[in-house]
Structures are given as C-alpha cells and as structure tokens.
C-alpha cells in the first residue's frame, strides 16, 4: 500500500487532536515524520519519504531560485502575516498533486495547517496562528523559505 494525500491529511489531523508532539510512521518503506509546532530536531535523513524532496544536487544552473523577497509587513492592523517558523522547503500541499491546504479565500483558525516546511526530510507543519480568511499567498510551492519569511497573509476583519 502507499500513503495517499488523504491519508497524510488524516494522519496529520489525528496527530493534531492527540496529546503527542511528534509521529514517526513507516509503512512499506515509506517513512512519514510529523512534528507539532514547527520545531525540528536533527534526524538522519531517511529515504524514501512520503514526498520526494526536490533536493537535487547543486548545479550551477539551478542557481538562485530565490524565494520572493519578503514584502514589507502589511500596515493594515486587520491583516496578519504568517511567518515561516523555520528555514526549509515550503509545500502548500501534503503531497505533490494533492489539493493545497489552503487557497486564497480559505477560512482558517489559529490551529489550521496552512503548509509544510521540510528540513532534511523532516516535515514540519505550519499553522495559521490566527483566525480569518487567507488574503494572499506569497511563498511558492517547493521553494526554500527563510526563517521568519512571510508565507501568506490572513485578513481578520
């Protein structure tokens, strides 16, 4: 069997509702590591993983796929920035091809998962941190985001 996007979403939800902070699951050589709160701990990279990381070997050509620079923080008090809780590769969906966690216009709660940040094959969930409606998505899928970089904005009005 393989893990589907729906499975991962389901497992993520189960972890969220549980009293645990992290989950390591291995099914038929597919390893899934989930951690609450965007923290990360050093772990040996394990392959294969539930998603194929775009960790292509460095080539001079694949240069500067630099993330969109962090636009100035919105001055509107009703608009909240959702910052990257750590540096890593940002994913909008639980798996390539799966529907994104959120789209512009999606309603979110503070605890709603809005993306994943991968650090050396370890998946860290990103939460909205505030309730409201997603007004802007700045970070691109599969691209390196810096610590503190604004991933998206949520209107709270």
């Amino acid at each position: 069997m393989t893990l589907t996007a729906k499975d991962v979403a389901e497992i993520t939800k189960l972890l969220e509702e549980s009293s645990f902070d992290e989950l390591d699951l291995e099914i038929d050589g597919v390893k899934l590591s989930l951690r609450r709160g965007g923290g990360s701990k050093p772990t040996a990279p394990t392959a294969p993983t539930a998603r194929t990381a775009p960790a292509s070997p460095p080539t001079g050509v694949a240069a500067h796929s630099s993330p969109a620079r962090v636009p100035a923080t919105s001055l509107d008090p009703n608009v909240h920035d959702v910052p990257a809780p750590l540096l890593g590769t940002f994913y909008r969906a639980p798996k390539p091809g799966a529907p994104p966690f959120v789209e512009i216009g999606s309603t979110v709660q503070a605890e709603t998962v809005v993306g994943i940040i991968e650090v050396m094959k370890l998946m860290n969930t990103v939460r909205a941190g505030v309730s409201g409606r997603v007004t802007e998505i700045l970070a691109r899928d599969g691209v390196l985001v810096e610590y503190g970089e604004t991933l998206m904005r949520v209107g709270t009005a």
Partner: protein
Amino acid sequence: MAAIRRILVANRGEIAARIIRTCRALGIETVLAASVADRDSLPARLADRTICIGPARPAESYLKIDTIVQAALGVAAHAIHPGYGFLSERAGLARLCEEQGVIFIGPTAAQIEAVGDKLRARAEAEAASVPVVPGGAVDTAEAAKSLARRLGVPLLVKAVGGGGGRGMKRVDRLEDLPHALELASSEAGAAFGDARVYLERFVTRGRHVEVQVIGDGAGRVIHLGERDCSVQRRYQKLIEETPAPGLAESVRRRIREAGVRFAERLAYRGAGTVEFLVDVERDAFYFLEMNARIQVEHPVTEAVTGVDLVGEQIAIAEGAGLRLSQRGVRLRGCAIECRINAEDPARDFQPAPGRVTEVSWPAGAGIRVDTHIESGSSIPPFYDSLMAKIIAHGPDRPAALARLREAVAAARVVGVATNLPFHAQALADTEFQAGGVDTGFVARLLARENVRHG
C-alpha cells in the same frame, strides 16, 4: 575535480567577512547563513545573498546541522564553509554533507572524530612518534591513584571530549584527586555528553606553540610554520605571533616535523593546527590536540607566508590538492596579532555587548584588521565577544611589535568596553617585549598592573 562556484558561509562575525573576501577574490558567489541578530551585519552586506536560518540563539540557528545543509541545498550551494567554532568541528555536519553531495570545506567526518576524542588523538600521536604529555586514561579510582603517584603533582584531570580548557581540573595534592576526578567527570558529562576523563602531568612553565598544516587528504602534508599563543587568559588566547620567539632552532624544527607527522598519519585533508605544549624547564614539547578547522589566529601565518589559507582550503575541497611544496613555503619576517574583544578589563574581562556608536580601526604599512564591526554595529549578547583582530607584520619582531603598538594605540571604539587597554599594557611590558613568555604571563601582568594602580 568539482569547481566550487557558490559557497554557503555557515558562520558569523569577522570570520564570515574574511571568508567572503577570499571568495570574492576567487569569483565565487557567497550565501551567508545568518541568524535574525546578524541579518544587518557587515558580512550580510558583503555576501551576494543572505538567508535567515533562525532566531539569535545559536542552538536555534548556527548550531542546527539539518537547517544548514537544507539551506545549502535550497540555494544550490556547492560547498559549505563552517569557519571556526559553531559546527566547524562537528562530524555530524561533515557526514551529512558527504551524504547529500555538498562539499564540506574541511576534513572528513572520520578525521574530525579522530581528533575530537582527546584520548584517541593521544593514541594517534603516540603511533606517529609524536611525544605526548605523560599521563593516560583512567577507568577506576584505583588506576587513577597509581597513575597519579607515578606522574607526581601537580597534575591535570581532563575531559576526553573537552577542549579549550573546558572540563579541566588541576590537582596539587594527591588526596584531592578523587574529588577532582568526580567533579571533572560530572562536568564533562554535562558539557560534552562524555564523562570520560584522563590524567596528565601539569607543566608548570609551559608555552603554547602550534603548527599550521595543510594536507591534500591523500597523505601529503606540509606545514606553514608555527604560532606562539602563550598570551592567554583562562585558556582564551589574546595575542598570537609567528615565528615563536626565542625557541631553540632544534625544538622549532622538531615541533614542525611532529605536526606534519601527526597530520600525515590521519591523511589529513584541508587546513588544521596541531597544538603543542613546550615545557620550558625541560626544553621538551608534547602534543596537546589538533584543531580540525581554520583558526582565529591564521592571519599571522598568512602575513609571513603570503598564503591565503582560506583560498587553499577551497582549492583542497575542490580536489586540487596541495598547490604548494614544503620548499615553496617561505617565512618572511614576523607577525603578531591582538584579539580585540568587547569585554571590560576593569570588570574582570566581563563580556560587554552593546552598540558600537563609533569605531575607527588602524591602517598602514604592515597592518591588517579583520573585523565585522563598523560604526553603528551591534554586538549581540548571544555570541563570543571577538570584535576584531589587529595584525602587524614586519621584517623582524621589534619592527612588527612597534607597528602593532602604534596600531593598537590608534584604534578607537566608542559605545562598548574593549580590552584595548590590556593590549596596550601587554605590548609595552618588558617581559613580552623580550619574547617567549609562558602561559602564566597574563596573570603576572595583571597582578603587576594591580599593584601599580593600587
């Protein structure tokens, strides 16, 4: 041979700026991995790009191996330069780089492990016919007692996983040994995650002399002379110079050869330093440890050899091997370095972080200043207090010393306390001017100054 076109600089402060400068000269792009506290630093402005890797606390940024490697992969860097401190001697980073196909600019993970374990390094030294301080491992209290009786007092209890003076206890009376063993072991366990300790004879009057080596990783090693780093306060080096003054030529030659032999035994790759303790009373020298990284004090060696050590590190990492032969290394004149720290000599050298409102560094013939501090720079409390290194080079020691004294007097820092007054005193001291001081010099100097100032 893999050409390195882009380097992730995984460090901060003056060494980050120094690495970036060589990369620029070589036409290599740099990406600085910076914490939140260093986003507006001078290195961040010098680098082609800066990425923020985490909060100010080192444990959440500069010490995160996974984050550093992910950052290198994310920006498509070919190599990581770890600088000194932080992750520079963590085998875990070298290993993850090896696994991920990122070049680690430094030795192999196995070499880092070999020298990181002090007992293993001692064994390697003995195997390379390099003298070690009389002493050894102790498994039981009984074994410790009998070894201590043979060595005599004073002696040192040292942590196998320690370094830089941490996890070290001096024993002056044999009856104090059990307590010192217990204390050192529990401290070592807490600080290094390794409670093993060993005993060494304490050399009453010792000089710290180290040999700069570079190796191609295939067994060829050359040295670039030695450095004397005996001006230390609590094992923190303050003034370093090359060549080591007043060393008997036979001792100088044998130390250099021993450093090369040790690195050869490991088939060492890259730049490294083999540290020795010179026993002044016995005219003998002993292996202390090897530092598997670029050292803070490397500029004095660069001054007298004309070799860019960071450039050689990069060339070796690319697979170019050694571009120099031993005979091609010429040592010209003398170079002395002062480490300018943001710490207050009047308050027992307490670190003095803060904002530098105004700074002016010296310049002139034979003067080099490696720094990341400009007017307006902040010195965050999270990191070490090194602000700058002032290096003077001259045709001989008196000339280098005269230039350095002038340069130290000309340096001006407003906003934070610095140890500049200490350096002015040390350089003016007759004992230092005579050359060849032992590691007790700073304590003696401070005692003399206290007497003078009442």
